[in-house]
């Protein structure tokens, strides 16, 4: 069973359902991070590491890992669907389009996300070895880093946006991330065409089932 079957009917007018988001793959990555951290991972750290992972893949290969929606927040960007998925695991579950509570628990008092089955390797076949190596490198880098290093690194990313005083968040299209990281307009057009094709292909394959 894929995770997508779980969230039908939970979409609110505030949080839209992104049909091209690779939800199972994002769950696989979070599951892998949990296993690397003795099954205790801070919510903020998880959301930021998965953003760093995804944007690294985007900038090195031209395609994101999860096909999620990037948003700039005051403390740096996140992938909206990943954050919703993590948030859905608390006892006080907000109305959210993604429900990851069958797999994870979010302890509200400590902001700690854990797998319900500590040894579960959720959807592991969706990650490549290169991707698990990348996640391992990220967790190793920030696990031993002094407090504040992750937040500082996130805020120093070329695509970081200083939001306006009354602004809670701002959407960051992939084009914007490419542009801020030095890609030319021609390159961005080409990369976006490739992303669009992969989305078209996956949509057709998934709708066939």
């Amino acid at each position, binding site marked *: 069973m894929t995770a997508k079957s779980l969230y039908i009917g939970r979409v609110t007018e505030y949080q839209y359902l992104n049909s091209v988001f690779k939800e199972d793959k994002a769950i696989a990555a979070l599951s892998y991070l949990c296993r690397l951290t003795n099954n205790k991972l801070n919510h903020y750290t998880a959301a930021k590491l998965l953003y760093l992972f995804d944007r690294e893949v985007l900038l*090195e*290969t*031209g*395609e994101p890992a999860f096909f999620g929606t990037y948003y700039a927040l005051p403390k740096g960007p996140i992938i909206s669907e990943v954050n919703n998925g993590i948030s859905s695991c608390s006892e006080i579950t907000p109305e959210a389009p993604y429900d990851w509570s069958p797999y994870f628990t979010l302890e509200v008092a400590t902001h700690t996300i854990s797998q319900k089955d500590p040894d579960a390797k959720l959807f*592991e*076949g*969706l*990650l*490549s*070895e*290169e991707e698990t*190596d990348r996640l391992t490198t990220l967790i190793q880098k920030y696990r031993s880093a002094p407090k504040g290093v992750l937040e500082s690194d996130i805020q120093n990313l070329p695509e970081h946006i200083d939001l306006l005083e009354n602004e809670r968040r701002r959407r960051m299209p992939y084009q914007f991330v490419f542009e801020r990281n030095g*890609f030319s307009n021609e*390159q961005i057009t*080409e*990369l976006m*065409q*490739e992303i669009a*094709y*992969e989305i*078209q*292909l996956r949509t*057709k*394959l998934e709708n*066939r089932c």
Partner: protein
Amino acid sequence: MIQEGSVFYLKGSEDRPHYHIIVFRDPLNQDKRLIACYLSSSQTLPDLTTTFQPNEDFFITRFSWVKYRNAKILSEMDLHLFNHVGNVNEKVLAKIQTGLRASLSRVPREVKDLLLQWDQDRLFGSSKSR
């Protein structure tokens, strides 16, 4: 007949087709799943593991490369979404197969595991026939 080397493009993408190649299938012909990759002609961030120059095969009209990272397991039913345009020549198929084996760390683990399972089946299948 779908075989290793069959070439398809996605229906509805005729204006800018990406050619999909069946790279491997079950050597014992019991598993109906297929491992497929597609070609890209993007000049930005190409994977240079396996590249093609124009005219290396009948459907290659410009510089192209194999997007191994997006290798997929397809079913024969999935191929109804595609138009079959022919078969790649043996040399091109060998290049793509060699490239996929060299890229196993970059493909989804499920693709790698399936290929390795088929390799095992091929080994034991041939052992039994000796």
